[in-house]
């Protein structure tokens, strides 16, 4: 079964384009265009990963990150921030707030897909590297 990704961005055109691209890469896609519906969509859909914009109406990206981190059920979902904001001012803050990665818009598609794949699904196991 394909993994589900929740795309949160207040620009519906961008959401549509990302949905097309993610589907073409064999992901299921759910979407939300504001902070409040992002949380309810996360609760309902239980996505394997969330792509999150920072500048959102009804609770911005940081509020969403905070709510996710404070939820027992949702805290484990990896979040990739995709924002037009200046990384110098926002990257560290987003990573501290629990994001797995920060991309500034426009992001390179291949890089974004690689980071999505790296953060989805069970962790690869290399037991021999950890002798006990």
């Amino acid at each position, binding site marked *: 079964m394909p993994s589900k990704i929740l795309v949160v961005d207040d*620009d519906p*055109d*961008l959401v549509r*384009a*990302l949905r*097309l*691209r993610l589907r*073409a890469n064999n992901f299921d896609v759910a979407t939300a265009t504001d902070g409040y519906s992002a949380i309810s969509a996360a609760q309902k859909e239980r996505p394997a990963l969330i792509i999150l914009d920072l500048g959102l109406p009804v609770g911005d990206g940081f509020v969403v990150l905070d709510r996710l981190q404070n939820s027992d059920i949702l805290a484990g979902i*990896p979040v990739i921030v995709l924002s*037009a*904001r*200046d990384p*110098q001012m926002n990257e560290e803050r987003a*990573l501290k707030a629990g*994001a*797995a*990665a920060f991309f*500034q*818009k*426009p*992001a390179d*598609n291949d*890089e974004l897909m*690689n*980071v999505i*794949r*790296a*953060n989805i699904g069970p*962790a*690869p196991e*290399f037991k021999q*590297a*950890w*002798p006990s």
Partner: protein
Amino acid sequence: MTNPMTSVLLIEDNPGDADLVRLRLVEGHSHVKVNCVSRLADGLAALSRETPSVVLLDLNLPDSKGAETFRRLIEHAPNVPVVVLSGQDDDTLAMKAVHSGVQDYLLKNSLTSKHLERAIGYAVERQALTRALEMAQKQQLEFKNQFLSHVSHELRTPLTCIHQYVTLLLDGLAGPVAPDQSDHLKTILRSVNQLHAMIRDLLEATRAEAGKMRVEPRCISLAELAQQTIAMMRPTANDKGIGLEIGLDQRLPLIFADPDRVLEVMINLVDNAIKFTPHDGSVMLQACMVDSDPGSVYISVTDTGRGINPETKALIFDRLYQDPEASDSSRSGLGLGLYICREIVRLHEGRIWVSSDPGRGSTFSFTLPIYSLAKLLTPAVTYQDQLRPAFSLVRVELTPLSSPPRGNWKETAQQCLDILRRCVYLDKDLVLPPMGASGAAETFFVVASTDLEQCGVMTTRIREQLEKLPDLKAKCTLSIMAAQIELTPPGPDESLEQQVMALADQTTAMIMTSMERKHSIPGKHPQLVN
């Protein structure tokens, strides 16, 4: 006086002169408050307590003489108007005073009440105007910077949309694309990328101007970055039929610099060189050491373009400079690239310059400070003015299980570094700064003032502590190695400084070999812990 309550700080050590000035000041003006001190130090102290309307300053005081007096005063209180009262009719000194920010230079022996009143009035007004102007300029600059960073943010939103849809079409995700349509789309994508680069440069230059550009220095191998630059620029050079060569000194030292930023500078210079070099020309990237300046590495990019004339050379690193002779096709930026390069190099405390032979080509050069291990090592490796008896080098390497790494890799690396610092004796062991490019495998080195046996205790402790980190096993593999640092016994006249230097050289050589070989550490008895 224009101001009904004028407070004057008079700094004058001659009681007779002080009385005379006081008399002139109060003649007919009941609203002047005069505070008189006889030493500069007392004057500065008074200025720290309260701000007078004006300072009247004698230059030859017991604790300060001549130009030094007004320099120190203005440095201490740049916003208070100062009028110099001098016994000397010295035009050069008077000019110097005004240049330094003094409002007026009056001679004591021709002082009249009216004269003094007018001078004070003008000084106060001029100072107020200057301040208002400075404030306005500062506000304007701040506004401009805010505006530019806002604009570059807002421009990204539509640009992202265009970028997404163009790549969607190009990748065939919205249906098949005919070959000529694909060419058109590639043209759009090129323009989108160009626009993206301009927006990035705009924000970067704004940051540089506001002093907010940041660098994250690491200990890096320049050779690796140079090779990366060449690999990245090869396609552009090939497209234009330009030869791209690389020349590196055999023994380049490690440098302490931000790898992303240094790469940015080298790519920018090589890209420029390709842009301004005609078909069949060549571009060469070189890095070397120079005997006369052992603390720096010299990096240069030489092209066979048409060169730069001397007038242009002086301006080329300025913001928004564009070569007026450049054809439209080579003028594809905002003219911020070299300015950004200069600022990056400056933040690394290096220099950047250009030399050129018009008609034959140009060479852009810059320097970066080498990573001086000797300086860092000195306190840890010496004890009672002697080198400690034995040293070991520990290598800790975290290799992410996936590329790119899972989760917040930067934080993982930082946590490991913190743990390393807690596992060593800070007075005799040294955790070196992070090595190599960030974002991939992280390698840390520790120089320990112990023999290999003792060092084993430390590496076990490091492993135990690292294994306590939650999720580390899900993210990466860990390898810890240690080797003895073999030193030839010092000669009888070898100074401590020379011994530390020899240790630093030997350690640096081991680190560099270890970084090149990956996953191993050189040394006579390499010991794999676990």
